[in-house]
């Protein structure tokens, strides 16, 4: 028994049995997540680690992190279709699929996060134009639509589907108009990545998160965009590398990976300049104006200064140098390590912006609390990762995701 006829032309895949065994592992994790979703919907958010103090928890941290890591889709698309960076042609399909997974996964988690999921459409029907969250709701949904449109031609290029004349022409025409969608996607993504940062920056009565305005936006708006485009391309490259390790096949030429690393490093360096300025302005301006000292906004291990140091130096400055310097960037293990570090840095940033902002006692007689997520929060998050693995596994097996695969694996 084989499904060879569905594989892209001229490639090798594992046996169907092995593939089904792999899918079984994925489905086991997915089932756990679906059960957790049922528990949350049936029992309410009381089953999570969130409470009156922590309005946001792992769901939001996870959403912010995957949306940042999924930024490879819009930024690579922007560079390939609009700036014409030709080397990205060989990884753009993967970037789109990862973007699709990250955004659809984030939306799935959001259905658990809101207390009244059946009213989620109110965001469109009764929008508050002043709310950064409204902008996020609109842009994420629209961008999800764009990512779906970008994913469709890749699906239609399946060997069997492509033999159907109508679908073949449809895929071709989708490709022709793709620069338009890349542009729309970049515009939408720019705004919602920014609005996610703006969501925290406008909290003028939460001194840990509040930032001054640049035009109508707090500057966290721009910091979130920059940190996302710094981590996204590197993450896409890492997924490609992980797939290579798992399948034992070369999928993307190293020069393409190094290019993704260079993009990540450059954007990270630009981000860090502004992030350092932001941290300085926050520590010497916003905090003292609120009657707080730098030390007062850190607490224990969960919200310690080590997080700031890790984010800005260990997982910031250090990988930026490694990625900017061509010798280290062109050494595979250093490239992979550096991009992993960039990803960890952005996750720390999303964690502190969410959890530390809420944990920090603003009233002088209040106290710090530590947020600990429960299994009902971990399970759906892991399920989204499993969902990503499922989409990627199916896409790798049945769709021509990697244009270089045949050439790179010729004996």
């Amino acid at each position, binding site marked *: 028994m084989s499904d060879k006829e569905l594989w892209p032309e001229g490639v090798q895949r594992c046996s169907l049995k092995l593939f089904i065994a792999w899918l079984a592992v994925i489905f086991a994790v997915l089932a756990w997540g679906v059960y957790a979703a049922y528990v949350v919907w049936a029992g*309410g*958010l*009381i089953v999570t680690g*969130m*409470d*009156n*103090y922590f*309005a*946001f928890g792992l769901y939001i941290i996870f959403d912010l992190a995957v949306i940042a890591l999924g930024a490879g889709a819009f930024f690579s698309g922007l560079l390939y279709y609009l700036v014409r960076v030709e080397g990205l042609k060989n990884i753009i399909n993967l970037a789109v699929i990862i973007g699709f997974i990250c955004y659809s996964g984030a939306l799935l988690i959001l259905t658990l*996060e*809101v*207390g*009244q999921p059946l*009213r*989620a459409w*109110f*965001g469109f*029907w*009764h*929008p*508050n*134009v*002043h*709310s*950064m*969250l*409204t902008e996020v*709701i609109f842009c994420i949904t629209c961008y999800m639509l764009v990512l779906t449109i970008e994913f469709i031609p890749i699906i239609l290029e399946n060997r069997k589907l492509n033999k159907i004349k109508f679908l073949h022409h449809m895929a071709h025409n989708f490709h022709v108009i793709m620069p338009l969608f890349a542009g729309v996607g970049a515009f939408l993504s720019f705004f919602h990545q920014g609005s996610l940062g703006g*969501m925290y920056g*406008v*909290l*003028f*009565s*939460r*001194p840990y998160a509040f930032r001054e305005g640049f035009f109508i936006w707090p500057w966290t708006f721009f910091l979130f965009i920059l940190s996302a485009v710094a981590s996204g391309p590197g993450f896409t490259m890492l997924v490609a590398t992980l797939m290579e390790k798992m399948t034992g096949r070369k999928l993307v030429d190293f020069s393409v990976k190094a290019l993704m690393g260079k993009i990540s490093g450059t954007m990270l360096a630009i981000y860090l300049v502004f992030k350092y300025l932001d941290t300085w302005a926050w520590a010497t301006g916003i905090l*003292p*104006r*609120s*009657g*707080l*000292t730098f030390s007062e906004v850190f607490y224990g291990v969960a919200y310690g200064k080590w997080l700031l140091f890790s984010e800005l130096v260990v997982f910031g400055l250090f990988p930026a140098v490694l990625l900017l310097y061509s010798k280290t960037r062109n050494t595979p293990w250093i490239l992979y390590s550096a991009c992993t570090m960039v990803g960890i840095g952005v996750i720390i940033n999303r964690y502190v912006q969410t959890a530390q*902002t*809420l944990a920090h006692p*603003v*009233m*002088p*007689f*209040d106290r710090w*609390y530590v947020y600990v997520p429960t299994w009902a929060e971990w399970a759906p998050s892991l399920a989204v990762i499993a969902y990503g693995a499922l989409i990627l596994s199916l896409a790798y097996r049945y769709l021509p995701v990697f244009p270089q695969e045949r050439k790179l694996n010729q004996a």
Partner: protein
Amino acid sequence: MVLYLKEFKIKWGMVIDLDRCTGCGACMVACQAENNIAPPVDASDKRYSLTWMLVYQLSNKQPYPNHDVAYMPRPCLQCGKPNCVPVCPVIATDKNQEGGIVSQVNARCIGCRYCMAACPYHARYFNWQDPVWPEGMEKTLTPDVSTRPRGVVEKCLFCHHRYMYARDKARIEGRDPNALNEGDYIPACVEMCPTGAMVFGDLENPEHKVHKLSKSPYAFRLLERLNTKPQVYYYSKREWVRKQGDNYLEHETVGGV
């Protein structure tokens, strides 16, 4: 929407004398009963309980015999510039009605809890569980206060239904509903306070006691420097109490006398 300080001709507000408050909790009980807040499933877990009116204990942190405590009742402060309003994605909360009370529309709220994240006073509460009243207790519900389902955010509204009663009564009596006398409208917590620590009225009306009290050098507002402009004032002649109303750096001095 309030992105700037919105001015009202009538501004309902409260002045709470912290030197009179004994921390008895009568205001909390009155609030729970008046506003149909269901008994908590586990009252020991304070981080899931709904306490629109919460009494904090403040301490001067001095050793005996100089030790001193104060109790600070905290309703929703009905900020003049509320952070919760502009962040709500669905306009479930707003500050647009004469009187300056920050509203909350339960049927509109999607439960995103962004308003909770925005409020530094923890004055907003999420319904973590379905409200369940013990058999018979449902007969004690206030008919003009809607009960809230699980999954929405709720908050103190200065017993807004009492405001509506007072306006209706004034209309029936042939008086101007926009010129209520002092005492025509007071929230349940103020009515129940046994020491008279809580005074309620129109902050803009010189004939109301709160107007004068709010101008006192002993009056202060919580987290004044964050510029949320609360309509609830606190009052204390003790400097350390006033000092705990906001964060002060070592070199800074507290307001008042």
